[in-house]
């Protein structure tokens, strides 16, 4: 069953066509890797899917809800956006409680403390966010995205700028979430990370979908059975240029 369906999405910024006739479907429980070179339209697509940017044309349905029901969709999704600003003057606990209230969560404090435990920030929950390292902020962004127990999680480069340990922590956490049934759309430039985590991969370039499938299906598409995701990515995006 599809949890997300986007049909013929188009978005242009002036004369630049950022996304062109993009059709995308995500099955419930899937861990989808969303790849593309810089400027391919990944972030624009994620922003359209999450309701942050209206498409010029096209249809989006998430968890059976059409895109005009923005607040209902917001209750079903979790997002770690590309821009990760925080209220630095708040503590992690205050920050999550603030968002829990916006989501109308019944037991804000309990939910917040559970999430802080899960992302291993409990011991620093009373410190100001401004004093956090990048890795801690990423984990806090992830906790905020999970505050409403979402059915689908959109992650726009969640491990960007993290050290290997930080990347592994987040990868394990995401794998665990996916095992619990959360559908994940994962955008990243770290291809080994994507091949280790994702059950299916979608590659876009110049705003168009150029490939979709499991790694073995992508290998068949480029007629190279032993290729790594990195080789496949280079071949497909170079052919498309």
């Amino acid at each position, binding site marked *: 069953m599809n949890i997300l369906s986007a049909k013929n999405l188009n978005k242009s910024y002036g004369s630049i066509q950022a996304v062109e006739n993009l059709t995308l479907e995500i099955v419930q429980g899937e861990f989808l890797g969303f790849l593309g070179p810089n400027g391919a339209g990944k972030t624009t697509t994620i922003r359209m899917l999450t309701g942050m940017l*209206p498409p010029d044309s096209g249809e989006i349905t998430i968890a059976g809800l059409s895109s005009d029901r923005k607040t209902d969709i*917001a209750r079903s999704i979790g997002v770690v956006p590309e821009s990760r*600003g*925080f*209220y630095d003057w708040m503590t992690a606990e205050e920050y999550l409680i603030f968002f829990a209230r*916006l989501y109308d969560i019944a037991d804000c404090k309990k939910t917040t403390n559970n999430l802080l435990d899960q992302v291993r920030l409990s011991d620093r929950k009373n410190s100001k966010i401004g004093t956090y390292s990048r890795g801690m902020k990423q984990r806090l962004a992830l906790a*905020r995205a999970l505050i409403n127990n979402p059915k689908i999680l959109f992650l726009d480069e969640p491990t960007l700028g993290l050290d290997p340990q930080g990347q592994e922590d987040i990868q394990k956490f995401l794998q665990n979430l996916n095992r619990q049934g959360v559908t994940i759309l994962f955008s990243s430039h770290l291809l080994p990370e994507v091949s280790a985590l994702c059950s299916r991969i979608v590659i876009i370039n110049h705003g168009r979908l150029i490939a979709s499938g499991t790694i073995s299906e992508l290998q068949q598409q480029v007629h190279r059975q032993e290729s790594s995701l990195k080789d496949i990515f280079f071949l497909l995006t170079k052919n498309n240029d």
Partner: protein
Amino acid sequence: MIKFIWLKEVREELYTWKSTVWLLVASLLFSFTSYLLLTNKELSLLDQTELLWLLSKIIIGVGLLIVTIDASSTLAGEFEKDTAESLFLAPITPYEVVWGKIFYVVTLWLFVFLVSAPYILVTSASTHLTGAFLSYALLLGTLAVFGFSMLISAISLLFRSSKNTLSTALIILLALAVPALFSSTLKTNSVAELFGKINPIEAIFASLDNVLVDYHMRLPQNMQYLIPLLVFCAVAFAVLMISIRQFKRRGIVKDE
């Protein structure tokens, strides 16, 4: 939802000490003005009602200035600090966010007014004008702040930058406040007269003059001055609604 946004703003002000600094500046300014009005040889010769009128102009002027500066960064700051996307990803509408911020700005004004209250009490001591002064300064100031904060929110949504919002808001504030400070003898042509009639700040000063100097303290006697202020609020509301609608059409994040 509006309550949580309002509460977040109030807490942010308390944590960052921004409003505390403003309130301190306001209280110093009011102290200095009151001291001058009561002790300066020439100024103390003024009639007490004139003193009150001058003080009321200063309180509302300072209040509007503080509110304009603070409101310019309240909404635009969310875009500049990259917190807008996370905020609007929550099940909250732009209307709720904007109203939460507007109510916070009105709260800030109420704090400025609270700081000014002891000065009003001292300056109006031994007159029967204290109650009227407090009531009208609060009513007129709150209406003006409400109108200005709606207008500034609309500008913030358009520019999404504190600097641009602040400079535009200050130009509007000066364009309305400066002519209101001119003497009526300078307003000789019909354009100046018409502008005087529709200018909300001029209406505030005229109403305070009507209450404090001419003792017309009943509300119906001041309706002619309240109308420009209410019209200003209605226009600011319309501009804000258009701005929010446009903001929703453009998207929460800026086109790249």
